[in-house]
């Protein structure tokens, strides 16, 4: 494990009587993108505020690139870039000024700040809007400005709170490319998002947060290992027609196989079983056109953990 990433040990924080974060252990490696996944109110934003040196934990320890943000916020801030979920922009400043001002707050001198602003505008695709006031930006454009602002001082640790919300598909692809680029450059990226399919394509590791506490790796593994649903589509056949040959080939009761629009949904306990099932279908002469997991691994785990919690309560 590299030490230069983010290390969180048993961090707690309450607001009055509300325990927002009740015990978080987290390791985000340098050179990797780590996803922070959890339902609304799980404490993701509170955790990120503590990591961003804005909020003091009641207990526990945090290290950002080896630095304790409570004991030495200035050093931690020099190394971390934080993109909040709600971006407050200085409405009447232009996009370029926003970045230049932020750079000045990070001790860049004027020419360096101007240069850096130019680079970032290019990087996040806002060069065309450099002279526009921040208040006229769309939500997606504001998100990109927020990302650029978090990158001004070339931080080694990036904390991104819902960076993809409001972005159009092209911007999401661009964001994914940027994040993979940061990871490849050896930076630590911690990203929280609700859009799990989106997260799935970019993260190396995932940390699950439920009710203010991280879910232990064992529980995650158990949840991930449970039965998942695969979508099967047969070439040139409606689902109603396809369900019979599929059920027959797999030895299932046709009346109990669900259908979703054009797809037949088949549960498999593991990826190995799914592969075996596919072989059976092909051997039986079913013209399989599509065969894919209905939910991504993250989403599956997330939903499974969520239902576990509902049963418990």
């Amino acid at each position: 494990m590299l030490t230069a990433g983010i290390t969180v040990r048993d961090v707690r924080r309450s607001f009055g009587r509300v325990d927002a974060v009740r015990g978080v252990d987290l390791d985000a490696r340098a050179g990797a993108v780590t996803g922070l996944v959890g339902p609304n109110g799980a404490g993701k934003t509170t955790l990120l505020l503590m990591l961003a040196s804005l909020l003091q934990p009641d207990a526990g320890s945090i290290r950002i690139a080896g630095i304790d943000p409570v004991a030495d916020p200035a050093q931690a801030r020099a190394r971390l870039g934080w993109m909040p979920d709600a971006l407050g922009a200085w409405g009447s400043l232009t996009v370029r000024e926003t970045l230049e001002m932020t750079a000045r707050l990070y001790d860049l001198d004027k020419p360096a700040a101007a240069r850096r602003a130019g680079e970032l505008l290019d990087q996040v695709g806002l060069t065309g809007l450099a002279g526009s006031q921040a208040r006229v930006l769309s939500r997606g454009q504001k998100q990109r400005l927020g990302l650029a602002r978090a990158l001004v001082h070339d931080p080694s640790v990036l904390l991104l709170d819902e960076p993809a919300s409001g972005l159009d598909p092209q911007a999401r692809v661009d964001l994914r490319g940027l994040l993979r680029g940061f990871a490849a450059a050896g930076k630590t990226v911690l990203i929280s998002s609700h859009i799990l399919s989106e997260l799935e394509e970019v993260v190396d590791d995932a940390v699950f947060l439920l009710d203010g506490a991280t879910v232990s790796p064992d529980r995650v593994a158990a949840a991930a290992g449970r039965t998942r649903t695969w979508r099967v589509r047969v070439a040139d056949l409606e689902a109603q027609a396809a369900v019979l040959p599929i059920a027959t080939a797999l030895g299932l009761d046709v009346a109990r196989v669900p259908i979703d629009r054009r797809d037949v949904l088949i549960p498999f306990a593991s990826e190995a079983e799914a592969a075996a099932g596919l072989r059976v279908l092909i051997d039986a002469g079913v013209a399989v056109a599509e065969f894919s997991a209905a939910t991504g691994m993250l989403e599956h785990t997330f939903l499974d953990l969520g239902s576990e919690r509902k049963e418990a309560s």
Partner: protein
Amino acid sequence: MSIARLWTVARLELLQRVRTVSWYVLLGIFAVLLIGVTALAFLAFGGIVSQADQRGAGIYSTIVIITLLLVVLVSPTLSGNSINGDRDAATLAPVQVTLARTSEILLGKVLAAWITGLAFAAVAAPFLVVATLAGGVDPVVVVVSLAVLIVEIGIIAAIGVGLSGLIARPLFSVAATYLVVSALVFGTLIAFGLGATAFSSEATTTYRPAMYNADGSPQCVDGADDCWNDPARMVCGAPQDSTYTVPRFDRVWWVLAANPFVILADATPAEYNGYGQPVDLFGQIASGVRQAQIPPDLATVYDECRPTMRDDVETPAEIRDRTVPSWFVGLGGQIVVAGLLVAGAWSRTRTPARALPPGTRIA
């Protein structure tokens, strides 16, 4: 403490202000008001002050006082939401997460609010020049009064920023700033008036009348009728005591020391005309405050049989010479209050935050 970062914070604030139309409208209204005030002041002092070369002093002091009044009225709205307003707009945390320290953020905002207030003084500048051209304005008066004006604008700015950091909601912090400023401007006056009456004293006047004949001529001790101008020979009646209450302004005059207008007037060197009367508003306000320091005479005697030549009534110039100045106490007190408020805001705004004001979020 980095000056570059502090100035960047101030610039952020100022840039946003200069790009709003309403700001220029406000300055325009201010200029229109000053045109009216200057015109009226020229008419008023043209009538009152006989020496043409002394009229400028009165006009000048009027404009400075009106400028201070308008800044006092406007400044709380400009500075009273600078911290919590940013927090509401989610623009505070992005600054806090940079290398800018809490002290730099706070002082940057005080500086920005100060400069904003000074913009009003800048609008007043041409009118002050016009007043100076009317003559009779002492350069020392200009320097001191403008210095006090500038410091007062800064104090109000700091009070607003401090309260905006201490109080979570912008609406309440603006209101609180208004209350503090009003306490200084009007509260001191009310406390002065009520206090003087509340701590009033019983005073006694002894009156010994002379006796008069039916035709109105004084009775003379030797029965003569020629003692008109000789009180020693008049027949005197029994002395009559009467009591009444006098307000004791001398017991509460120090309350006024905290008033920004009194500070301005008291700090400015007084200019007097040949009769010892102040030539400008500063001097008139100051002489009123200085007069209040003198205890009232609690036992007065009016004796028609022993008329004493009444002492020469003291002129304001003489009163000022034998009473004490108070502006530095008031100014010092205001600076301490503003400093404490900013220090309180600092401890509330510090990050990583330990306790958050109820009902707020960091970002």
